[in-house]
């Protein structure tokens, strides 16, 4: 059961690896958060830290009212602990047939998950992760290895999540769920850009299309394909 006042609070958390460092501060409250940043900016490290799997060098991570959490890492094979799809589903405490249907995979549960393509494995893994409700759901590059249709389907599923805190870490440029709050990692610091749509105006490394729309004064109301399309149509004077 989700707690209404739940929040994840980062108090000037610092991570260091050699010359690289990342400082993160801010409050993640209920809703869908998008954390963007270039490759190597520290998104995965931040996800691990928020999941409590990687201790910070300095600062603290407070999870108020969060009873359950899940981290989906970028590489689906990192989650495999079973030698067949049935065993893998059982390790999540889930029904194989339900998961295979949900992932849109027409294969037997006896098949080894290692024999699946990266894309198929990602679909299987995401289906397992999204089959349960968590107070805190951390999705690290959930769109990697997925084709356009699957990305859109996943965006719809993430958008439909009404409970808890969902944080999507991605450098994706075209597929986004409906987002409540936007964050950006730039210059070794996590910046809270605020609530969408106002945050889009402050998005320093926004995708080219969104930057162009903002540039001509047609800021989309959110980041879903429909809303970006709607803003683009306004740009060209269509209703």
């Amino acid at each position, binding site marked *: 059961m989700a707690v209404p006042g739940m929040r994840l609070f980062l108090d000037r958390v610092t991570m260091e690896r050699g010359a690289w460092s990342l400082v993160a501060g801010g409050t993640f409250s209920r809703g869908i958060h998008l954390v963007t940043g270039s490759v190597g900016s520290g998104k995965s490290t931040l996800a691990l830290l928020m999941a409590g799997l990687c201790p910070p060098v300095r600062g603290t991570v407070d999870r108020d009212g969060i009873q359950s959490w*899940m981290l989906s890492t970028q590489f689906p094979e990192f*989650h495999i602990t*079973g*030698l067949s799809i049935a065993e893998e589903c059982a390790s999540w405490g889930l029904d194989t047939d339900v998961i295979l249907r949900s992932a849109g995979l027409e294969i037997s549960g006896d098949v080894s998950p290692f024999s699946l393509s990266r894309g198929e494995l990602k679909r299987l893994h995401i289906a397992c992760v999204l089959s349960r409700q968590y107070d805190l759901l951390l999705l690290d590059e959930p769109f990697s290895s997925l084709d356009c249709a699957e990305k859109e389907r996943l965006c719809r599923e993430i958008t439909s999540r009404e409970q808890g805190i969902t944080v999507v870490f991605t450098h994706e440029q075209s597929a986004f769920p409906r987002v409540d709050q936007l964050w950006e990692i730039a210059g070794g610091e996590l910046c809270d850009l605020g609530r969408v749509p106002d945050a889009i105006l402050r998005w320093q490394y926004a995708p080219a299309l969104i930057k162009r729309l903002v540039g001509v004064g047609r800021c989309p109301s959110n980041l879903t394909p429909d809303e970006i399309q709607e803003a683009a149509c306004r740009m060209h004077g269509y209703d």
Partner: protein
Amino acid sequence: MQDARVRLGSAALLSVAAFISIEGACAVFLWWLVFTPHVRSARTRSVLPGMLALIGFVAILIVISGGNGFSYFVRMALVLFIGIWLYAEQTPGDFLSVAVWAFGKRTGFDMGMIGECAMQMAESLSRDLTRIQTAMKLKRQVWGIKNLVPAILVLIHDAMIRAGDITELLATRGYRNGGSLCPVFRTSARDLVAGICAICALIFAIIPVSEFFILYR
């Protein structure tokens, strides 16, 4: 220790010395205290308690069955210490350089490459094990005997896939046997002293202590 030849040679001699006798193990312990950074390395600290517990368990079984469990524990613990030190000090390319230096560019290169692959595999297994433990933690599974068998099977499966990938890569690059390498070693005075002391430790382990005092009989 900078010179990989001295490091590998010393490790081999010290392992034999520690295994042969309790006197040898004591000499190896002294060598370990003087010439190694002990267990300060994070790479060594993480594996030490588990390995010592395993040796201790076998030692207890030996004591129960009437054997000298204490001697076994001390000797094997020192072999373990030397092994962990060698693993912590090893850098990529050491096996290849030493094997080519010792056995030439054909047999030596092949032997060295096998050694490097084994080291790489050990690193990968360690990473895979951490990954599996994290995955189980995420799935709210308790790491224990029940999960050990599937975890080991996944580890073996991953290792087989990785070995297949390396084989394909070597075949794609046209590898048949042997290779060209000009190993370069840097030997410090401390390396030489450590090497000589390792030889002394082996001599001390082989020759009974009383023989050293033969002139005084």
